[in-house]
């Protein structure tokens, strides 16, 4: 995609949907006004393992306003016991009242439907349940000996996603090392907690089902619902124009969506289910706990000779889900001998899921702290150690990187941060009562892309034209509406205000999941291709129309600016899109085009990189930890919207602070109960915790990666941050903390 100086791509344009959001006009899943709407409330198990021995709904059924209660006794029998859509990881193993088995504490065991949310909530407390308790495993440490290797699956193109991976000879590499680090790092269970909780409204009309959902994957929701009910996909209509944050937990369709549809079918009226904040802990996934043992070997000059990274993370008893912390290790440094292994252990908890930078967020913590430990042992600057082992080509695949500006990121970031002022001796920098420390870590995330299809139509809008561009993508609050509008406007030669971009509807052409930081690359490329095709169609109409001033001019010689056609030669011929369209029957032109990754995935390794620098200040009395500043320098290819990109990056960095210092889901080992399941007790940072966040995008022109030259930026912002902060805390205090979150308890 050629850079267009006069174009809108790259500009810090405000969100096109900003006004709708601040005025409350944006309609989120729970906001849709539906005639005859009823309210479903999920009753959850209060044991962690076993089965429902009896469930008495007589009192609940008679409670005021109650329409019905769905349990495993009366729920409709779904094809394949509700597992027809299960094809992990896309389709999840759900709990849909097909039996009385209980796999975790908080599992849905009934749905109460009433005329109001309050009535349903109250009646839900009246459902009387007795259980036969089974064997419980809710303690990660106790279950650790039961860990098993991840079942093998084929590698994906361009990225080795196998659970077990070896190159070279790690034992020989370690034996040849002058210095070794062998440590264990742990990260806790975390839960996503987007501002908007999960919500779904299900409404049947004959054999057609409409679901107003909040989802990161419109087509995934459609297919999951359709397969689960044994329906044709086109009989399910998913509507999800606004999503109030997803971060991975809305990437899969969870039980409540199907339960809303089941209740709606059973009780023959539209049913809305909105999860409470407490219900966000368990039934809709979270980041799994990890235990990572890392062994590093290096020569005395810092050259890495071997890395072994063994990750153990937990999953549920109903599905294998992996936090692939060790995958990032395979490509981070030029080390000839490497082993990266993943193991799972089963706990009676809700199945974990993707959470912002799954794998990289936890892996860049452990590896980058291990590198800091190695640097200290080598008496080397941590930045010099990283440069010593800089990978010019991908050590995993041996392929060249499509682009890699990491060296520049290190340089620019270090300069802005003032890295040279760091004192190597831990615990020696002071400012009054504050112990001060500097730390750094590398950030990275792969660039993915999936096929996407976009329909673009140019039509009259009064005396002007507008383009309506549609695809079933999603905007999680990140700015998809805006960047797609910019891409479409530039491709068509229109002002952004002449473009209406629409998403979030399964009647639109398919776009991939908004996950893996690939919406911009996938859907953006398809928008570019479709709008370019549409423009060529309109230009061809003009060129072929004897009544057009452009008649006879080759379409490729015609340029468009703000809807006006001009020739690239000296010809004075000109007219507008509106004039061309006005002469067309129907006064509209449409193009539908797809874009998909190609040979580049086999030729190149494609990743975004960055360098994160953190300052930590620790009160020498109370050991309160403060992060006064973070500097992140990133190479992410083309920046599509400077303002939104900056917001994306600082949001990732804020979450990195949260991961480093705040978040931990507590599961009671005695019964698998989620203990701190609210936002008072599950702590995320407040504004006062966040100070200076500096983001720099270094210039990076990537001609190979995709038609718009952009790498995804959804996840890279969180990566590296926890590692940089942990390293800064060590530099400040001399206390090496190898677990997250790091709290003052650890420093007293």
């Amino acid at each position, binding site marked *: 995609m050629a850079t267009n100086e006069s174009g809108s791509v790259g500009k810090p344009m405000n969100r096109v949907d900003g006004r709708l959001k601040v005025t409350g006009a944006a309609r989120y899943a729970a906001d849709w006004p539906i005639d005859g709407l009823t309210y479903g409330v999920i009753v959850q198990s209060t044991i962690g393992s076993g089965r429902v021995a009896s469930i008495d709904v007589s009192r609940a059924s008679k409670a005021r306003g109650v329409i019905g209660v769905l349990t495993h006794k009366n729920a409709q029998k779904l094809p394949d016991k509700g597992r027809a859509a299960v094809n992990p990881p896309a389709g999840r193993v759900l709990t849909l009242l097909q039996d009385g088995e209980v796999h975790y504490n908080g599992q849905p065991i009934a749905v109460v439907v009433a005329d109001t949310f*309050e009535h349903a909530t109250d009646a839900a407390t009246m459902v009387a349940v007795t259980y036969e308790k089974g064997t419980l495993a809710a303690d990660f440490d106790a279950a650790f000996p039961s860990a098993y290797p991840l079942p093998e699956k084929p590698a994906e193109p361009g990225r080795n996603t196998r659970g077990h991976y070896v190159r070279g000879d790690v034992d020989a590499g370690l034996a040849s090392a002058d210095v070794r680090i062998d440590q264990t790092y742990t990260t806790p269970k975390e839960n996503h907690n987007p501002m908007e909780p999960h919500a779904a409204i299900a409404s049947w009309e004959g054999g057609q089902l409409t679901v107003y959902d909040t989802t990161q994957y419109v087509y995934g929701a459609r297919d999951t619902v359709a397969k689960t009910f044994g329906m044709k996909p086109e009989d399910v209509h998913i509507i999800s124009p606004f999503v109030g944050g997803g971060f991975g937990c809305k990437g899969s369709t969870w039980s409540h969506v199907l339960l809303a549809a089941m209740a709606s079918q059973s009780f023959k009226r539209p049913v809305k289910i909105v999860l409470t904040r407490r219900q966000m802990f368990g039934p809709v996934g979270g980041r799994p706990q990890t235990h990572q043992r890392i062994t590093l070997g290096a020569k005395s000059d810092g050259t890495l000779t071997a890395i072994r990274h063994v990750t153990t993370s937990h999953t549920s008893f109903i599905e294998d889900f992996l936090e692939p912390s060790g995958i990032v290790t395979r490509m981070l440094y030029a080390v000839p001998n490497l082993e990266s292994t993943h193991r799972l252990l089963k706990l009676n908890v809700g199945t974990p899921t993707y959470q912002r930078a799954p794998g990289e967020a936890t892996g860049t913590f452990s590896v980058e702290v291990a590198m800091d430990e190695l640097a200290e042992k080598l008496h080397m600057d941590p930045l010099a150690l990283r440069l010593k082992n800089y990978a010019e080509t991908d050590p995993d695949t041996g392929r060249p990187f499509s682009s890699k500006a990491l060296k520049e990121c290190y340089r620019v970031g270090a300069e802005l941060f003032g890295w040279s002022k760091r004192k190597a001796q831990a615990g020696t920098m002071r400012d009054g009562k504050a112990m001060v420390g500097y730390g750094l870590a590398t950030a990275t995330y792969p660039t993915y892309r999936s096929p996407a299809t976009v329909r673009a139509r140019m039509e009259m809008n009064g005396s002007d034209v507008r383009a309506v561009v549609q695809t079933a993508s999603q905007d999680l609050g990140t700015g998809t509406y805006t960047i797609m509008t910019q891409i479409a406007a530039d491709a068509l030669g229109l002002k952004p205000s002449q473009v209406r971009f629409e998403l979030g509807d399964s009647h639109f052409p398919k776009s991939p999941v908004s996950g893996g930081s690939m919406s911009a690359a996938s859907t953006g490329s398809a928008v570019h291709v479709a709008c370019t095709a549409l423009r060529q169609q309109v230009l061809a109409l003009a060129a072929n129309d004897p009544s057009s001033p452009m008649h006879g001019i080759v379409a490729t010689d015609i340029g468009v600016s703000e809807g006006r056609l001009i020739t690239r030669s000296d010809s004075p011929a000109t007219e507008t899109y509106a004039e061309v369209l006005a002469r067309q029957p129907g006064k509209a032109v449409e193009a539908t085009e797809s874009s998909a990754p190609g040979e580049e995935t086999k030729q190149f390794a494609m990743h975004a990189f960055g360098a994160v620098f953190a300052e930590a200040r620790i009160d020498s009395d109370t050991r309160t930890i403060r992060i006064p500043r973070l500097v992140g320098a990133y190479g992410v290819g083309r920046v599509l919207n400077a303002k939104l990109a900056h917001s994306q990056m600082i949001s990732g960095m804020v979450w990195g602070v949260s991961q480093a210092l705040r978040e931990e889901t507590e599961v009671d080992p005695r019964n698998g*109960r989620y203990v701190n399941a609210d936002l008072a*007790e599950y*702590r995320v940072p407040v504004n006062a915790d966040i100070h200076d966040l500096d983001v720099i995008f270094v210039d990076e022109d990537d001609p190979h990666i995709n038609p718009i030259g952009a790498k995804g930026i959804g996840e890279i912002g969180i990566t590296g941050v926890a590692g940089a902060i942990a390293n800064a805390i060590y530099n400040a205090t001399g206390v090496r903390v190898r677990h997250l979150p790091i709290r003052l308890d650890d420093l007293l």
Partner: protein
Amino acid sequence: MRDFHYKRAKSMEDATRSISGDPTAKMLAGGTTLIDLMKLYVERPDFIVDINPLGKISSDLVAIAPLAHGGLRIGSLVRNSDLAWNDLVKRDYPVLSEALLAGASGQIRNMATVGGNLLQRTRCEYFRDTSMGCNKREPGSGCSALDGFNRMHAILGTSEKCIAANPSDMSVALVALDAQVRVRSSAGAERTIPLVDFHLLPGEHPERESVLHHDELITAVDLPAIPFARRSHYIKVRDRSSYAFALASAAVALDLRDGMIHDARVAMGGVGTKPWRSHVAEKALIGLRASDDAWRAAAEAALHGAKPHRYNKFKIELAKRTLVKTLSEVAAM
């Protein structure tokens, strides 16, 4: 939420008499604890008597006024924000203003009242989860926190039945300041309870949290004149910069003359099952020269006998350091 009857009180008599006939009835002031716990089914009143209208009938309930012989009377319906920003409070009892502003969020402080905050209930997660045993919520059902996640729990004043921490910041400052709680019963009888005796230790009956009778309405809190309280300070240590309950906090006032400690007020939060006035720390300080040794001696005395559990062992050292820091900062004022 369950259905309940609701009534707006017409007078103090109406409020206290209405509530006296129904053992489940609750008075509603700011609602920041009560409504929250009703949504969780921890509180299950059948009858709510809204006492907010009383502020319009009896202006004393919403007033902050100097007492004839020194000191301050604070109406029980005074909002936490109004109390925190009151000029007399800021001048004469800065520790109280600081404690209030260290608590909750702006929105909650705008609702929460002085009387309600004295009765704020614990944030123990097991108390708040009706599927777990809790002797405070359901006597005899066992304490889940003893062997559970107890990082936030108390280390002073605990019993085998309950280790829940009192969450109030305001009460810590008030108990340091010798506050007196004025209450009025349904029969119109008035009595004054020293705040230090107002809250009960859990002992065998953690469900009993204060000496307030069911039919009594808190009408005011009196602060005696403590001239040296102008030299007072509150430090709260928590997991984030705002909107978190104390891991440890300290309220301190010092009467210093020529470097000698003539008198002291010391209370601690986040560590006790009730707002923790430390007379032993005060005794340890009085007569000593202001010095790090004095602060350390007071901190050792204050935490003497502290009983931690699995996840809150750090609180002993943290509380000592918090108290030392607060004492030294007050001395430097």
